[in-house]
């Protein structure tokens, strides 16, 4: 059957979403390989269930929700496996050159985000890194908006406090 599949446009939209889906999945899994597995499963599921997607609603929100649900399912199945200890994550080289400072600073934020508890991380990835509204974030994660607000505020305050500390530490060691 050489006729072009009628869902080419849908596949193209999925491909356009890939970078954001991978970023969100990475925030959840903290591993690029796992993130790619998760995103691939989510995209295949979206293709399979595409008739459940209501045209006119946001495809990205739907895909983020599928990623989140698959991630939860996977964690449930692998509950016996211990979570990665955030302290074991690579912390970068504090004596790196000044020229790399911009990248180093960004790396610090990313490491701090990845060290947050998973519930806070998911909310932060959507509401802050993705810039989604609280309502969209709540819908994607399937939690009340009040829960989004409380998790997000804990995450953001922790982030602000930690960035403050690293900023001071760098200032102290630099001079």
């Amino acid at each position, binding site marked *: 059957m050489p006729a072009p599949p009628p869902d080419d446009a849908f596949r193209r939209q999925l491909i356009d979403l890939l*970078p954001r889906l991978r970023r969100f999945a990475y925030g959840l899994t903290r591993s690029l390989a796992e993130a790619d597995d998760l995103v691939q499963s989510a995209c295949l599921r979206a*293709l399979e269930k595409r008739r459940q997607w209501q045209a006119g609603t946001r495809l990205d929100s739907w895909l983020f929700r599928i990623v989140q649900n698959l991630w939860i399912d996977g964690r449930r199945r692998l509950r016996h496996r211990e979570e990665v200890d955030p302290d074991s994550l690579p912390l970068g080289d504090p004596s790196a050159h000044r020229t790399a400072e911009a990248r180093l*600073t960004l790396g610090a*934020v990313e490491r701090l985000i990845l060290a947050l508890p998973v519930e806070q991380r998911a909310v932060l990835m959507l509401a802050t890194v993705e810039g989604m509204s609280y309502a969209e974030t709540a819908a994607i994660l399937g939690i009340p908006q009040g829960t989004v607000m409380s998790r*997000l505020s804990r995450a953001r305050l922790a982030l602000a406090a930690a960035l*403050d500390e690293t900023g001071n530490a760098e200032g102290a060691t630099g001079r």
Partner: protein
Amino acid sequence: MTPKRPEIQAGHPQQDRLVAYVDGELDIDEREAVQALIAGDCHAAAIVERLIASRDQAEGAFGAILAAPQPPHLLAAIETADAPASAPDWRARLGRLTHSRTWRLAVAPAALVATLLLSVVVATTPRDESGFTLASGGGLDIPAEVQPALPGLLDAGGGERQGRLAGGGAWRLFAAPAATPAAQDCFVVAFAGDALPRSAGLACPAEAGWRIATIALDPAP
């Protein structure tokens, strides 16, 4: 010695609202209330200042992933995944169907011949009052007295039913899971009866009941 900033570590009784304020999630009344709070509470003001700075840093986080080329295996998986049930590959499905045991044992030569001889017809019709769709003129051609057996068979996960028609003559009805990722939760169904048209179709869950698309229809022998 790292001077801590206790005002941040300690948080603030209204920290949820302060974060929502920074994120532009408050309506005008709440916004004005937070602005009044900040004006008279330097602890809150310090937190808001830090929240803004950290948000600006977090917004660009993981930008390297956005900028990176997409992994080829991911692109290939999306481009080559089976088409969804709305655009099924009927030929492949029939191939799988005709290899199933149910089909070989039960649907018997007639329906198989029908699939080979008849062009593939895809038809869906509106649901009837019972919430169960039976296509007329294009879908499964099942006598009215047998129709009630089908939803139960599908809800039971497939199987076989048989009986005799009021006017005499045996009938058999089969349903087997479609066993393809593109049509999960769907069943291949077939009806055969003495001196009755034979038909085979694909039944998929619909809002209230089942929707059946015809795979093949064979006129009465």
